[in-house]
């Protein structure tokens, strides 16, 4: 009897699939070109609906914004770009969200984000000129950068020996078997590509095989594959951890011997990236959102934010100095303009390339 029911359900599923064929999951509020290009008036038009990573903004600044304009900031959080997209697809109306660079490109090509008239924003001239016409958003018409990050190896200078400035140190340096790979398919496959001398975003299946082999061979040397970078290092479970530069800053805040925790940028290649302000096309309070972006661009606010989140923000003046001050004993952690220009950034992988990466990662996990 169970068999009959399963068969029934199976055919129901197939039938439904056939019926829905071609339909996408959800109905993301795709705007038209006209809608996305409509300029936003900079004014208070309601409470701010904010959607970002957790612990990625100083709560005091949020309160400050609320007081300044007499609005409430309704915060919610995602923990990955994928989770953010799922919520957007579900049709929720956010006012300001923070996609990474390649996702800005993705959202833009889908007509999902609105034009930001940057010249209307005070202090926008402090933004690094690199971002005036970035690859993911021509003329920076739809986004403004928020934070910058770079990926490298965090390690305990007091416990580890044999660091040579290479990505290979993750598996080869003497870490007492306390090495962790970052549980992020983009970062890990990207790293493997760099180690093999390929570009960060390599999608050729033959070359990806090499990268997969590298990762699979790395496995026995690893204690874990984890995204809990900060907990791992603070608790002493990790002596080498594949992580982002801001993580090291936050790790240092939580230990008694911060000087022993260092960050290594690796010679085979430096993945860099930015998280960016964008305003979705279905935002209900875009004016307030624009005011919020302007508020965060103010040098004092940004400087304060830098110290709280532990990541650099790409604005000249006080914010840059603030981060330099945070890492003055360890300038490796900083991201300079050269790093931005010479480092490699993650791109949107198309169709087959994405699937190839997905397969590599899944096979690595189950191997």
């Amino acid at each position: 009897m169970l068999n009959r029911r399963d068969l029934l359900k199976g055919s129901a599923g197939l039938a439904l699939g056939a019926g829905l064929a071609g339909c996408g999951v959800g109905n993301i509020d795709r705007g038209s070109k006209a809608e996305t290009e409509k300029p936003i008036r900079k004014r208070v038009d309601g409470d701010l609906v904010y959607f970002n990573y957790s612990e990625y903004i100083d709560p005091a600044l949020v309160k400050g914004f609320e007081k300044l304009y007499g609005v409430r900031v309704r915060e919610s959080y995602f923990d990955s770009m994928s989770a953010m997209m799922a919520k957007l697809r579900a049709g929720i109306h956010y006012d300001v969200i923070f996609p990474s660079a390649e996702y800005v490109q993705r959202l833009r090509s889908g007509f999902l984000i609105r034009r930001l008239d940057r010249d209307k924003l005070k202090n926008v001239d402090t933004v690094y000129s690199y971002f005036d016409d970035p690859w993911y958003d021509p003329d920076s018409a739809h986004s403004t950068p928020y934070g910058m990050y770079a990926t490298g190896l965090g390690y305990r200078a007091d416990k580890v020996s044999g660091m040579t400035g290479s990505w290979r140190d993750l598996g080869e340096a003497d870490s007492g078997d306390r090495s962790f790979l970052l549980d992020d398919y983009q970062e890990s496959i990207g790293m493997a590509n760099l180690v093999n001398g390929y570009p960060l975003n390599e999608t050729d299946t033959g070359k990806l095989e090499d990268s997969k082999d590298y990762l699979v061979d790395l496995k026995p040397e690893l204690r874990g594959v984890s995204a809990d970078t900060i907990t791992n290092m603070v608790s002493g479970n990790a002596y080498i951890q594949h992580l982002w530069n801001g993580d090291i800053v936050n790790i240092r805040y939580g230990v008694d011997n911060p000087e022993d925790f260092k960050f290594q940028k690796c010679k085979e290649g430096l993945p860099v990236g930015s998280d960016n302000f964008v305003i979705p096309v279905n935002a209900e309070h875009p004016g307030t959102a624009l005011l919020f972006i302007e508020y965060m661009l103010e040098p004092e606010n940004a400087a304060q934010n830098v110290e709280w989140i532990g990541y650099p923000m790409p604005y000249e003046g006080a914010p840059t100095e603030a981060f330099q001050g945070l890492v003055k004993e360890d300038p490796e952690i900083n991201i300079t303009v050269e790093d931005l220009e010479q480092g490699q950034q993650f791109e949107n992988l198309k169709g087959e390339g994405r699937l190839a990466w997905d397969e590599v990662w899944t096979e690595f996990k189950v191997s």
Partner: protein
Amino acid sequence: MRAFDRPRFLRVFVWIFFVFLFAPIVLVILFSFNSSRSLQQFDGFSLRWYETFFESESLRDSLIASIQIALITMVVATILGTMLAYGLVRARTRWSDTANVLMLIPLVTPEIVAGASALLLFTQVGLQLSLTTIVLAHITFSISYVTVVVRARLAALGRQVEDASMDLGATRWQTFRLVTLPALWPAIIAAGLLCFALSFDDFVLSFFTTGESPQPLPVRIWTQIRFGVRPTINAIGTFMLVISTLSIGLALLLPRLLGRRESGLKVLLGREGA
């Protein structure tokens, strides 16, 4: 002689069990009062993390949202689940097997899929994500737990008392209300508490079905913990513990009220230990 041997060994075992059970809890409570950010060394007593917690409007809203969701889930799921358990054990129809399988499959479903499928449904139907959608999802996946727990007890109860009650002239509904239900209370309360705990603690389901704000507390904790454990979390955990203790204390009062009724029934039926 031998009857006392087992208790002694058992008692030690149970003591050790409680120590291990509560060790992390004690740690959480202790470090919630830590004056420094360290999670390894206790540097002195302070209430700063509680201040951070209560001053945060969004954390307060999240806490209230979590409690609301858990309460509604507990009530609705317990009702639906108990009814389902009764129907599964007492009814004999050709739908019984189907209902049984239907009830069991949510248990087979991994949380992540429960969340994703719920999200799929709400998105396809066009229902805006909000606290309501979270509650709907929670109830759906709590019903099975209630049914399984209540059914175990119902099966062990047997029909004799119910048959006797109807022989004495009570209607089916009266029998259910005055005989079956009181006998089921410990199981129902256990199931209800289970529901509350499951809902209060749940984050995967909530994560997928939550709207923009407020997000339930476990969702906040999950997204927060990934980016560095801040000691505020220990304050939140301790606070949740206090609330739970109070609610369990409340729940414990109920059986006492019913206990009186039950013994009254026993006297009426001239049965003891039934």
